[in-house]
């Protein structure tokens, strides 16, 4: 980690000594330098981008199926492990690693849909579409798949942190005026921005995107104008899981922390971002993911990084109490 990016918030593993160094308002070494705030903002941005990538997967799937995919965190884990395997097998350049990870992520998404969602989906009328039984069944089945995947990864690789080759860590320092960020911040930002842009293109300019939007908006209406909803749903899982898998490997290489249950916390953060954003609004989820990333990294200035996770839960509670339809309500385009 080279000590270049101070408090890590994504995992509760690196308490280190930030606590003593920045012990909050009552600590001895205030005021904290402005540079440090800027630095935390930069970290918050990459953190937020990662949450955004994850949140999009949730949001897209919630949009077309009205169900929560509890195995989304495992797609993230699969992405990270795929990247690790690819790196240790033939050490290709990062871009190749990313492409392979994204491809495996898409496959994982399609497999997940076939195993955990398709068997419970027989809707052709309104009653079964709104059926709670269908929703609850896929809640359980996706949770089951997530447990199986996590345990399988643990059997295969062990539960401890994997050794990431040091030269593959995205931590070369980059000086940016008064602050120092690491290459990972830049790479995460660029990759996430490209993927978000790509998603926007797919949704607004392609037939697949048109069908995804149509199915999100009114699945029955879509069927009766010739949209193959089943195939559209597969596409949605593929696209959403590509993003989740990419987030997994990026974070894995950023923190050097790849382990079987790594998907859990980011999965929850992304879920919070989705709920805050209004469940099925992509712009809403992205904005809320960024807010979450910034808030967490700013919070680590004042509290130890393990406590930063509380920020997300706090947001969730506030959203559910005061903005039950999400901060952006239902007014926005669903996808």
């Amino acid at each position: 980690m080279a000590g270049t990016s101070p408090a890590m918030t994504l995992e509760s593993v690196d308490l280190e000594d930030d606590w003593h160094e920045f012990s909050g308002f009552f600590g001895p070494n205030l005021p904290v330098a402005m540079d440090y705030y800027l630095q935390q903002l930069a970290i918050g941005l990459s953190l937020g981008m990662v949450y955004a990538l994850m949140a999009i997967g949730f949001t897209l799937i919630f949009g077309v199926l009205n169900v929560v995919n509890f195995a989304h965190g495992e797609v993230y884990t699969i992405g990270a492990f795929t990247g690790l395997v690819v790196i240790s097998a033939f050490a290709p350049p990062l871009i190749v690693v990313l492409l392979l990870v994204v491809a495996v992520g898409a496959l994982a998404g399609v497999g997940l849909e076939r195993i955990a969602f398709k068997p419970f989906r027989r809707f052709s009328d309104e009653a079964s579409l709104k059926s709670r039984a269908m929703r609850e069944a896929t809640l359980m089945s996706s949770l089951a798949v997530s447990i199986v995947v996590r345990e399988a990864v643990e059997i295969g690789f062990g539960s401890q942190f994997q050794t990431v080759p040091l030269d593959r860590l995205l931590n070369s320092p980059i000086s940016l005026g008064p602050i120092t960020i690491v290459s990972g911040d830049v790479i995460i930002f660029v990759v996430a921005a490209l993927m978000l842009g790509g998603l926007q293109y797919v949704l607004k300019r392609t037939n697949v995107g048109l069908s995804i939007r149509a199915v999100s908006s009114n699945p029955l209406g879509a069927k009766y104008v010739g949209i193959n909803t089943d195939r559209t749903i597969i596409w949605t899982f593929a696209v959403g899981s590509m993003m989740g898998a990419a987030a997994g490997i990026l974070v894995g290489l950023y923190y050097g922390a790849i382990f079987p249950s790594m998907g859990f916390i980011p999965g929850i953060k992304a879920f919070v971002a989705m709920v805050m954003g209004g469940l099925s609004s992509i712009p809403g989820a992205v904005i809320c993911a960024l807010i979450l990333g910034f808030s967490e990294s700013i919070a680590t200035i004042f509290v130890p990084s393990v406590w930063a996770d509380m920020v997300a839960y706090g947001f969730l509670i506030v959203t559910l109490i005061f903005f039950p339809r999400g901060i952006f309500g239902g007014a926005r385009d669903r996808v």
Partner: protein
Amino acid sequence: MTTLLTINGATRRFGGLTAVDGVSTTVAKGELVGVIGPNGAGKTTLFNLISGFTPLSAGKVHFKGRRIDGQKPFRIARLGIGRTFQNLRIFPNMSVFDNVSVGAAGMLGVNAAGAVFGGKARSEAISRRAWAALEQVGLQGLAGELAANISYGRRKYLEIARALAMEPELIILDEPAAGLNDTETRELAAFIKRLHGDGMTVLLVEHDMGLVMGICERVVVLASGRKIADAAPEVVRKDAAVLEAYLGVEE
């Protein structure tokens, strides 16, 4: 005239209730056929059987000589049957233009490579069809508007335009006049007549007797799931069984 749609002994039971009971009829190319009947007569169920919304309990449905019952709704749609719904099923959070584009895109199918990378010819075809359909219903001026923001009456036309963008051979309108006032209903009648005049085959389920009797060439009357009449409007109007079904007969 060639037969487009053949319904043969269509039956649908929901538990102990037989909503549609052995109904047979045909629709020829270019016809404008109305289906009427009192509440609960099985009109909408019959439509749902044709479009694959509800599976048949017994009987067969053929379209252009191909058996379509048991097929998935999107396949039936792609064979050339467009439909609208009594409770609109538009895409409220998409633009008017995008709504109609979905109709065109659905017909052209979505496949892997061509879909992601667009295909210029394909997107041009979609956009051409969408504009043509919008012009047909007179909504081209609202193309950029969010569908949720246009009036209820216009949403009805939007749904029809979406079906027309599929360039179907048969269009099924399920109670299009529901919720419209008299003026709007008259406009709708004129619109359906024009559509038919342009060569479209139309099957119309309607509550509004005046609308059906005024524009349809043939009327199928359902009562308690059974077909009780199938003839020209002036014949149906004097039919004893129809009068009984509508007006009731004292025991």
